[in-house]
């Protein structure tokens, strides 16, 4: 009796340790980034590095906000945020509009070639960007296209197939009678789609929109490549990757960490607010697929 009780307690303790470990492992890099971002240049270079910002002489707790002030004076970073907001929001909206059109057609309408196009879209969701990188870059350069616009268009490569795929399965789940009753009432299929079905898909639109937005906000390969000839169009991941400080003596990691924190905070808020939606969207793409 006593022995089994001890076993239960050990098991529980192990379980708690595992959970605490996962928690620390997942969050520690962020803690370290925040810690470093609150240090002055001298504090950042202290050896050994301190777990909290400490004064080099007295070793007392002394954080500073100078890195945050510096990055908001840094035009590349601020412009990067604006570019990212513009590019990611526009790409998401376009993907949702055209994606819901296509998803409605594939989920609810009858036409020849439906299965084929569904498979095509599914395979497109895993399309490697690197395979078209040089082709897209060449097109942009030879036609002299505006970089931000071209970035938005190229982001359709991963946002559009994903949106279509997830929304199609959602439209399929809506009862056919909705469409039929619409027809009986004399509405065209498009009217039924726009006024009846689309409002019903609002939750799915939020989910897919969120995931498309995060994917576009985080995209790096296209952004880095296409903005190589137009630095003023750089998005925030590129700005952070290429970050150089006000005084370019060495890599200003205090400022880089401050920038990392600033970019991460909105994402953390998004994740906490829309946790359930994000998870259901992630798994809809894979599990139900």
């Amino acid at each position, binding site marked *: 009796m006593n022995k089994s009780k001890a076993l239960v307690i050990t098991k529980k303790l192990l379980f708690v340790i595992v959970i605490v470990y996962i928690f620390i492992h997942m969050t520690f890099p962020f803690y370290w980034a925040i810690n470093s971002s609150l240090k002055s240049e001298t504090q950042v270079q202290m050896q050994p590095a301190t777990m909290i910002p400490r004064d080099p002489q007295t070793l007392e707790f002394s954080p500073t906000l100078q890195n945050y002030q510096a990055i908001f004076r840094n035009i590349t970073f601020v412009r990067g945020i604006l570019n990212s907001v513009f590019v990611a929001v526009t790409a998401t909206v376009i993907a949702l509009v055209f994606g819901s059109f296509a998803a409605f057609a594939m989920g609810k309408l009858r036409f020849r070639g439906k299965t084929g196009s569904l498979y095509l879209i599914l395979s497109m969701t895993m399309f490697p960007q690197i395979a078209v990188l*040089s082709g897209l870059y060449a097109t942009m350069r030879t036609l002299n296209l505006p970089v931000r616009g071209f970035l938005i268009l190229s982001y359709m490569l991963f946002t559009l197939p994903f949106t279509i795929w997830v929304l199609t399965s959602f439209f399929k789940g809506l009862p056919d009678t909705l469409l039929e009753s619409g027809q009986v009432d004399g509405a065209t299929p498009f009217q039924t789609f726009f006024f009846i079905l689309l409002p019903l898909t609002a939750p799915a639109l939020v989910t897919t929109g969120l995931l498309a937005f995060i994917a576009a906000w985080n995209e790096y390969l296209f952004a880095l490549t296409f903005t190589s000839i137009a630095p003023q169009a750089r998005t925030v991941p590129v700005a952070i990757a290429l970050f150089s400080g006000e005084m370019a003596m060495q890599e200003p990691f205090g400022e880089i960490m401050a920038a990392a924190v600033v970019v991460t905070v909105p994402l953390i808020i998004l994740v906490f607010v829309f946790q359930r939606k994000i998870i259901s969207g992630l798994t809809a793409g894979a599990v139900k697929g």
Partner: protein
Amino acid sequence: MATVKLQDLSKREAKLAYLLLVPSIIILILIAFYPLGSVFYASTTNREFASPRPTEYVGLQNYAKLLGVTVQELPPLEDEATGAIMRDEQGNIVFADAFDVLPRSRQGVRYRNLTEFTLFGTKYVLGATEPAFLRAIGDTIQFTVISVLLETVLGLLIALVLHSHFKGRGALRAVMLIPWAVPTAVSSRMWEWMFASSRVGFFNVIGQQLGLTDGQFPFLTDSGSQIWIMIIIDVWKTTPFMALLLLAGLQMIPTSIYEAARVDGASTIRRFFSMTLPMLKPTMAVALVFRTLDALRVFDLFQIVFGRSRFSMASFSYYQLISNRAMGYSSAASVIIFVIILLFILLYMKVLGGTSHE
């Protein structure tokens, strides 16, 4: 009369469907199919940006240079005067320098030393016309296999933990989404800083305190640790994704079968291996495919942390395009990456064949 009208209706429906599909199709042709075709075409040319040289068709020369390998025997050096085999102070045989042995390829490109090895007492050198690319392929595949394997095992573990009920379960699930949601560019910078090569970096502080390093270990430039650093960062970032997918899979398994098994006296371990795992297989298959294809095209991590000191397949292709402006050569590298990814898909379809969905 009625059938005519019905036919009319279905025709109208199909017409609407095509109309709704048109924008997406046009966009995907513009940004996927047309550029893919142009990449295949460019891979057979020597096209360069901002080059006065006219673009010419070169056939498969780019591929030959990217993949060209040769094996040459490294003969032991002989003393010119005596003809005896030369030995160093320790008495080891001195072999010819690989540079002197490696020939030029048919296109006149010099083979460079990729690796040396000994087989049945004879020393050989494996030379390649583009050692960096072959190394990138090897590194990327090693990175993919190890990190996907680790992510699957750890992801499954975490999914099992999350599947049980405890206080703070929702919070933990939310916390796990953060590494996934943060841009790889940002997390690469964060980890790069933690792996700094002196005690300004977290890992060198800890390493020194534990007596593992002297506090100066060059994690990011040591060729032995480089791939492992990539794996550590990638596992941190993508295990949550794996765990959440597998958790969703776990939640779809009806609990009633577990109760039945418990009644029958099946042990926890037995239940896991003969029930949970087989029922999780379809989900796991999808997750594996997703992650493998993702890992094979890894770019951000390698490019940000290593720059040009060590390539992934994708970052090699990128540097050829942007730094060398070698459109043709970069395209050929991209085509090879595309083919390698296709091969992995075929492999998965063959292995997982029966369990794949739909």
